[in-house]
């Protein structure tokens, strides 16, 4: 517990961060920036786990461990996504959504 | 083993045999043999049925047996027949066999043609022998879907459009039907307090009236689409006009009867109260159908369209009669189904034969055919006379019973509609006689017609198969009517008029 800081304040920060990430995901065109927006969303969720763990259920380190696993999974995701992006770049020399939209709707 | 299963096994074996018969001639032989056997089985069934009744068996359904299928949902395969289904099975066997003979000359993908045709027939047989809603529905859909390929591959004219329209409309009908059937299932309860699909058990347990009000229209319209219920009949003229001959025969002659049969076996029998309440609305629909289709038939110049509209009109009459909810009219309805089945199949067969020779179906382009094609023309005249209800032929008995039955209702509403429907008969006479006059009488229009070949043996066989029962029914209607009337007793009891 951080003296003087209530749970709801932390949750507000994490929620705002999550939705900033959503905004980025929706408006960005560059694949790498979309990926970065995803990271913001994931971190928002991670803060939630930690805050709940610390403030409400300190008996077990559950939330903390979940955040740890989350970080590992996020690393996997980014690594794979970047491999694909670089492969894509080798094909078309661009990483923007528009240029990556040859599949017709 | 139940005798009725034979009616499914023979077509199944025939289809199996067809799959292994290649070439142009072998498939038709296999199909003919198979369907002859089926015809024999149907005749035997009629005899066995009559014997059983003569021996004093008064059960609602004879030859019943029940096979467990999905045990947890209490879905069973229940078989059984009464007089109505027996006569319709015989009709189906006759028309199918005639259809095989009429399609003797199909050479493009002959194997596939006969497979689809017999699959269709299998669906119809299965429908008539089942007495539970699940297998009825299953066979109903099984009968509809081969139509798509039959019309689409071997049809003529705008065949793709007609096939798609027909299939989708019939499937939409069956979709509504499905809702109705599931509703019946979940409001039913048998002796062991389970939900059931069995017709007799549902009838015994009864369906609450609120549920009836909801599901009667769904079920009636669902079956009615196949029975050319106005305004859902529009698939019929296009479909019949584009279909190959044998398919038109089977479809108009047999498949459309599924609609009428389903309406009274399921919709009316299981939900009599709602039927009595709502019949007025459907009487208006079917009555208008009779008149509308008959007047449309006059306007047509294409033989197939004339006959298709005439079919719609006659099938409308069947539904009209069923909705009268009394014994005479119902008997008439069943007689009309059989009579129309034979007659319309015969018509389509003859139209097919004429088309093969003259390469036209427009009435005005033909003329004087009686002189060059005596057999075909003579049969055409007989079919026409049966169609307009000449005494001594099948149509007369059927239509007379319907109108007498309909007139039994004392109120103005029923009587007005009956008179309107009777007037359609006059219209029928107009178009039939006009066609006969223009097409068969008079001078020969085209010199080329003089050299047309007469009917081949297989065509004669097909036509005779259909014409003999027409004459037979006209001369001896009583045993058939008796058989039907006796089977209507449970239904009438449910309606409270027996």
């Amino acid at each position, binding site marked *: 517990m951080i003296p003087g800081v209530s749970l709801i304040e932390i949750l507000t920060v994490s929620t705002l961060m999550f939705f900033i990430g959503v905004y980025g995901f929706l408006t960005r065109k560059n694949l790498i920036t979309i990926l970065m927006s995803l990271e913001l969303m994931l971190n928002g969720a991670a803060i939630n786990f930690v805050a709940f763990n610390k403030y409400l259920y300190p008996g077990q380190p559950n939330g903390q461990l979940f955040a*740890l696993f989350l970080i590992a999974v996020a690393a996997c995701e980014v690594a794979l996504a970047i491999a694909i992006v670089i492969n894509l770049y080798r094909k078309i020399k661009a990483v923007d959504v528009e240029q990556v939209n040859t599949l017709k709707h | 083993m139940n005798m009725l299963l034979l009616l499914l096994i023979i077509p199944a074996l025939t289809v199996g045999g067809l799959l292994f018969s290649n070439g142009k001639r072998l498939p038709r032989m296999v199909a003919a043999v198979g369907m002859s056997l089926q015809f024999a089985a149907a005749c035997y069934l009629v005899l066995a049925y009559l014997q059983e009744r003569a021996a004093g068996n008064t059960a609602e359904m004879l030859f019943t047996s029940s096979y467990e299928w999905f045990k947890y949902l209490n879905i069973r395969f229940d078989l059984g027949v009464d007089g109505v289904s027996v006569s319709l099975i015989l009709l189906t066997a006759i028309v199918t066999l005639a259809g095989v003979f009429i399609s003797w000359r199909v050479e493009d993908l002959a194997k596939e043609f006969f497979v689809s045709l017999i699959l269709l027939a299998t669906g119809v047989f299965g429908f008539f022998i089942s007495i539970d809603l699940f297998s009825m529905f299953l066979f109903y859909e099984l009968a509809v879907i081969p139509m798509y390929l039959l019309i689409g591959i071997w049809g003529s004219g705008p065949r793709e459009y007609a096939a798609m329209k027909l299939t989708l409309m019939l499937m939409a009908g069956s979709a509504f039907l499905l809702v109705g059937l599931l509703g019946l299932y979940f409001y039913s309860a048998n002796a062991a307090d389970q939900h059931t699909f069995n017709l007799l058990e549902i009838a015994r347990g009864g369906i609450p009236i609120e549920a009836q009000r909801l599901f009667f229209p769904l079920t009636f319209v669902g079956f009615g689409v196949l029975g050319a219920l106005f305004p859902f009949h529009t698939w019929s003229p296009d479909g019949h006009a584009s279909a190959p001959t044998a398919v038109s025969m089977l479809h108009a002659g047999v498949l459309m009867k599924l609609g009428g049969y389903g309406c009274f076996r399921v919709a009316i029998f299981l939900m009599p109260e709602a039927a009595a309440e709502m019949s007025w609305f459907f009487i208006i629909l079917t009555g208008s159908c009779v008149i509308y289709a008959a007047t449309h038939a006059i306007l047509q110049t294409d033989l197939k369209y004339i006959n298709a509209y005439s079919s719609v009109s006659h099938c409308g009459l069947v539904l009209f009669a069923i909705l009268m909810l009394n014994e005479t009219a119902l008997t008439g309805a069943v007689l009309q189904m059989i009579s129309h089945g034979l007659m319309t199949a015969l018509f389509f067969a003859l139209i097919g034969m004429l088309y093969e020779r003259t390469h036209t179906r427009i009435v005005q382009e033909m003329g004087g055919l009686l002189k060059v094609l005596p057999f075909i023309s003579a049969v055409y005249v007989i079919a026409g006379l049966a169609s307009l209800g000449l005494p001594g032929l099948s149509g007369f008995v059927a239509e007379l019973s319907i109108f007498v039955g309909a007139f039994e209702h004392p109120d103005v509403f029923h009587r007005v509609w009956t008179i309107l429907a009777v007037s359609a008969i006059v219209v029928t006479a107009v178009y039939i006689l006009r066609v006969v006059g223009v097409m068969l009488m008079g001078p020969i229009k085209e010199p080329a017609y003089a050299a047309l070949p007469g009917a081949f043996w297989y065509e004669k066989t097909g036509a005779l198969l259909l014409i003999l029962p027409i004459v037979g029914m006209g001369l001896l209607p009583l045993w058939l009517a008796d058989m039907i009337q006796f089977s209507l007793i449970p239904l009438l009891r449910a309606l409270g008029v027996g």
Partner: protein
Amino acid sequence: MEKIIFYILSAVILSLSLMSVLSRKLLRSAVYLFGVLTAIAGFYFLIGYHFLGAVQLTVYAGGIVVLIIFSILLTHEIDHQMPTPEWSRVAVAGALCVAGAVMFIQLLQGSLFSRVEVPEQSDLNTLGNTLLNPGGGGYLLPFEVVSILLLAVMIGAIVIAKQRHSVDNSSQEKQAP
């Protein structure tokens, strides 16, 4: 004191994430993201989860962001300027996110959170024991699953990224498991 640090961290987190999402320069965006992740690590330290904070710093800030910057450098010129997104898109996304955030926060404020009063267990010992305990409340199985996940992703990344032109060439480059 902690309160002030928390507010500073929050301000840093929020402003940098916003800038990271809005910036038109790709590389700057990544640097802002780095700032956000570091600030979050700071927050973990503040709350007393030192191990998690360290992991956040090394894996996230040190690993992932480096990977991202690496890929940016590989695929873009340094001063690459991204076009601004269209108005309609910004408006719709903005409205959606603001509405979502407001609803979310209101819901959170309205919820009654009841604290379970038990002694806190967050030292490294408990953490390690829980992580590798095969019995009740232990996280051994997830640990194994994550290791499989890492392996699978590694295979995937290598297969996609490795160059191949002909058979002979690739059999020498072969390095998958």
